[in-house]
């Protein structure tokens, strides 16, 4: 509840409970008790709707959201791979994801690719599939990715011994689109001068979003939106910030930034905006699988995509839309796609008059002394600029 005044939002506690007890959260346990299968996905380019339409619960594989030792992850993956992939592998090796019936990855970045390889060799989840994800947005890239989605769908059908019907797919698209729309509304609240919900709280909601059935999540989120819009809560942050960069699930890191006087009002993270960003567009004359594949390839891009200008443009568009004073970039060490983009992104932001603070962190890290000093100095600079 960093720098957000007023009493708490009671609905937030439900999301927190999901995160606190994952993977033994009630919603997941009940699903499995009913005989439901659960598949883990490793990257936002994996089309969840296809998994859901097969009657399987898709959840996101993430690592420890807090700082922890990564002995197994380091031993199997070496320290020069990003701490997110090592943290995920660590959990896998320790049996924390033993309940998974399948794992689905994409050829998205080195960390994700190697995590998938090692997961298959050492964690041995029964079903595994990796999708080739093009790096371009050309028509042929879209055709390729559509083929990949179809191949994945077929693989699922063969493995599960069922047919994914058009009706099921349509239903799943509607469900996931509803979720995206609700999350958009949550973000819209943060456009307010004094948002009723903080960046850290939003991240807690998002973390829960990929750890439970969307049917339940959507209902809870609708209730939260209702509660938040009626609430008198107001953020007391002094400057408006946008968070960009590597994968992040540690709400405490966001809370730490907000504790220094920042208001994280939007972001460009694969665990938040890039996760829910764009809907699957129906009624465009495309088949359902094609509509899905187009959405995933055209979605708010990861740094892996080319040209990077597409990502930069959308970051700037969001920064302007949310009236941010500055951008905080956090790059997990050895997250090379984002590291490569930094010099070019900084230049683009500078041209738009938006200052950027670049932080090197480890996945799961909270604000250490040095980070604190830098964040404080950045916020002070933004405040001075405002005056």
């Amino acid at each position: 509840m960093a720098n957000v005044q007023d009493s708490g939002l009671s609905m937030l506690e439900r999301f927190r409970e999901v995160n606190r007890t994952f993977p033994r959260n009630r919603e997941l346990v009940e699903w499995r008790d009913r005989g439901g299968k659960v598949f883990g996905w490793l990257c936002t380019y994996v089309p969840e709707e296809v998994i859901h339409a097969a009657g399987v619960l898709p959840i996101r594989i993430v690592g420890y959201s807090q700082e922890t030792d990564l002995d197994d992850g380091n031993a199997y993956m070496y320290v020069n791979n990003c701490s997110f992939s090592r943290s995920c592998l660590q959990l896998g090796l320790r049996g924390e994801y033993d309940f998974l019936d399948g794992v689905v990855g994409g050829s998205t970045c080195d960390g994700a690719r190697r995590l998938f390889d090692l997961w298959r060799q050492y964690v041995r989840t029964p079903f595994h599939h990796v999708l080739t994800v093009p790096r371009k947005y050309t028509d042929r890239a879209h055709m390729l990715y559509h083929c990949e989605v179809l191949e994945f769908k077929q693989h699922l059908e063969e493995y599960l011994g069922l047919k994914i019907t058009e009706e099921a797919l349509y239903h799943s698209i509607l469900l996931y689109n509803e979720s995206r729309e609700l999350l958009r509304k949550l973000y819209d609240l943060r456009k307010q001068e004094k948002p009723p919900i903080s960046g850290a709280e939003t991240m807690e909601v998002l973390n829960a979003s990929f750890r439970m059935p969307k049917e339940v999540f959507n209902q809870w989120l609708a209730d939260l939106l209702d509660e938040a819009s009626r609430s008198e809560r107001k953020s007391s942050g002094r400057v408006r910030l946008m968070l960009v960069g590597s994968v992040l699930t540690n709400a405490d890191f966001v809370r730490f930034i907000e504790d220094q006087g920042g208001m994280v009002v939007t972001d460009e993270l694969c665990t938040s905006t890039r996760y829910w960003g764009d809907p699957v567009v129906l009624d465009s004359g495309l088949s359902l699988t094609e509509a899905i594949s187009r959405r995933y390839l055209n979605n708010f891009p990861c740094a892996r995509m080319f040209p990077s200008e597409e990502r930069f443009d959308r970051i700037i568009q969001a920064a302007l839309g949310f009236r941010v004073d500055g951008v905080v970039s956090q790059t997990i060490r050895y997250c090379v796609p984002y590291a490569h983009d930094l010099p070019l992104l900084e230049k683009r932001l500078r041209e738009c008059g938006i200052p950027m603070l670049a932080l090197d962190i480890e996945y799961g890290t909270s604000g250490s002394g040095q980070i604190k000093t830098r964040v404080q100095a950045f916020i002070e600079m933004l405040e001075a600029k405002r005056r």
Partner: protein
Amino acid sequence: MTSQMTENKLSVIIRACRLVRRMLRADPEARRSQLMYYSMLEEYFARILRAKEEGGFLVGHTVFFPAEIIYAMGLVPMHTETATWTMALFTGDCSDILASGARLGMAQEICTPHRGLTGAFASGALPHPDVMLWSNMVCDNTAKSGELIMEVCHCPGFLLDRPFKRSQHEIGYLVSELEDMICFLEERSGRKMDWDKLSEIVARMDRQIELVRQINELRKNVPTPFRPQGFLELLTVDYLFPGQPEALEYLETLHQELTEAVREGRGAVKPERFRLMTFFIPPMYLMGFLDRMSRQFGAVSVIEPFFTYWGEGRLEASRPLESVAMKSYMIPEMRMYGPLDERALNAIVQCVDDYKVDGAIYYADVGCRHSCATIKLFKDILAEKGVPTLVVDCDVVDSTVTPEDEVREKLEQFFELLEER
């Protein structure tokens, strides 16, 4: 200042090649193929240096890029990663270009061949290409390197988006990407693709692969006839001269020399004590030292499953573009950088048996996340076959990462271990 530095760095490489050739000529045991190799290397970099003044169109390209197309269009290729590590090989110190990369804001996590490369362009240590081509065939560093280079060199560029797997629709996509790239090159260079020439190059590349396979067959012999670190020559020839007449001449000469050596029972090291499998690339600045160590201990690399061990498959001159696409999946390194399936892992096991491997050396380049992420996996596979693995932490370009003494100590201990077994 800029042009002076450019001349200096390339000139250093060229002068070093000349020096090595002079030394080899004076060495009665030197093989003709070695002389040819350094002559090729010298000419490759001299061509880059001359490109601007001779009206050549200089094309920078990343590792494993299908340079066959560049050659077929009569353009001048510049293999960027090889340029960086050749600088490291011949100068021993890349601190200036690494510092230049850092000044651009390039993070430490970006591997030194790429940090050094962009730094070299920024400082003028390498000539700016007329166009930059890069791909996602290896890792995020290659896939992400192009845009900053375009910015630094003020040149246009093209990303070749190569699909991860090799289904028919993926190969089709790659062919279409190659077609787009040819259009891009034609537009920018004003030169037309010579399809007959590409077919000839593909036919020669097919022969080139076949020759490497035959050379590897000869390396199975005990004692093995090929020099301890000789595989780096095979690698460089493959990278810089795909389907080029000089590459065939070199490989045919080498094959002949090795055939003779086998017939006469001559080994590369005397006596041959340890037959090694090598993973990844040794630090360039330690090459001379590693060669001496190998000879001192009778240790020789007999196979490199992910560098020289070509898989099955042939290239067809009648389908040049499809063959270039297929080759990208046949390249030995792609077994490691592509989906790490059973086929890739079985290649390691097969190599242990076929090449009578005693031990493996894994050069764990701190900047290479892909190769480091498989250390344990490969080590486990080798352990099941009773083959120990030595992991040498290093950096292929940055000489400050691993001192020579540390590597010496590790190698000595490893050879002792092998001896005891």
